[in-house]
């Protein structure tokens, strides 16, 4: 599973990254968590507000930090 967190690296994006990494670790899932900070790349994916979470190419959430319970649902 490939998880990409989109955001320029401000506090809320970092928080999302931590939430997702923690969820991956807790559930023992084989997944890579990457950060995307390039705005042009985000635009190519159709993301125009941050933070955003993309799992295996599918945009799960844009423009707000998801709660842990939501992340758990995407990962299951």
């Amino acid at each position, binding site marked *: 599973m490939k998880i990409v967190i989109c955001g320029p690296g401000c506090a809320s994006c970092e928080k999302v990254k931590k939430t997702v990494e923690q969820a991956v670790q807790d559930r023992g899932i084989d997944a890579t968590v990457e950060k995307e900070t390039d*705005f042009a790349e985000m635009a190519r994916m159709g993301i125009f*507000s*941050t933070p955003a979470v993309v799992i295996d190419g599918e945009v799960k959430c844009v*423009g707000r930090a998801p*709660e842990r319970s939501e992340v758990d649902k995407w990962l299951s």
Partner: protein
Amino acid sequence: MNTIHIPRCDCSEPNSEQKDGKGLARTLFLGSAGLALWWIIYSRLDPASRFLTYDLFGLSRDSHLGDTVQFFIFEVPKVMMLLTLIVFIVGIIRSFFTQERTRRYLAGKRESAGNVMAALLGIVTPFCSCSAVPLFLGFVQAGVPLGVTFSFLIAAPMVNEIALVLLYGLLGWKVAAIYLTSGLIIAMVAGWIIGRLHLDGWIEDWVREMRAGEAVVMEEKLTWADRIERGRIAVRDIVGKVWIYVVAGIGVGAAIHGYVPEDFMAAIMGKDAWWSVPAAVLVGIPMYSNAAGIVPIVEALLGKGAALGTVLAFMMSVIALSLPEMVILRKVLKPKLIAVFIAVVGSGILFTGFLFNMLF
């Protein structure tokens, strides 16, 4: 711009109709009870703070220390209670306004009407300055005129619920209303002027050549329970983040309140010192603070003889013209356009400062 509509983001708990109906009645009941309790505590804060300071701690009513302590004990819970209530309500309102929706509204708008709408939407659309660039790209892609985009980018950080709550709580509704109105007018007029200058060529080239994908739009069907949950999350995130600034700001404010002599600020920030308005704007640009930290200090300065216009100009400059945001926007705007942006918004703030120094 074409958009892909995702029928439902599975971000929210599924709620059956029936459960939601029952839940709504319960929520309404709990909400009104909570609001009543809030009001009872809120209205008792002033006498309680006096009782604590003068009777329980035995501080003298005319002493500097007494003044300072009473100010602190009264203002901190008062501002925190106001902040919690308003952030909760705004969190619920914001669940109706997403950036995607705002972009769609503005895409079809012409200038003038577009500037007015963009500034108003700036108040209610969730926005943080680090998402200014993707937002800008999205607006450009959707064909929102440059000036209209700027109206949004000026209003969104400057006119926000936190600034308004603090101004209302510490300085009264008149100052809050003046700030709201002049902030909106600056955003509308500055955006309109930037649009009239036709500076589209001063956007970075890669933005214009960018091949963007179709915008992903999360169409969420939120129940009232979900929206209230959003309000709760907003309180947790925002109040959890700014409380320390509020306490520190009121602490500094309390010290100024108790120890700095009256009229101390009159000479350097008073009405007669015309140069204090441009100086306040210049000093404010490199300073970066949120409204939570700046308003308590502003309140204390006003109390010591600083003029309202000067203080408003200072506050607007700190919030609206921030260096970090310029650095972020530099990725999409050429330096010339950033300079025009600073000049136009700075002039608007100067004008506001002089105007209110003349009126009050």
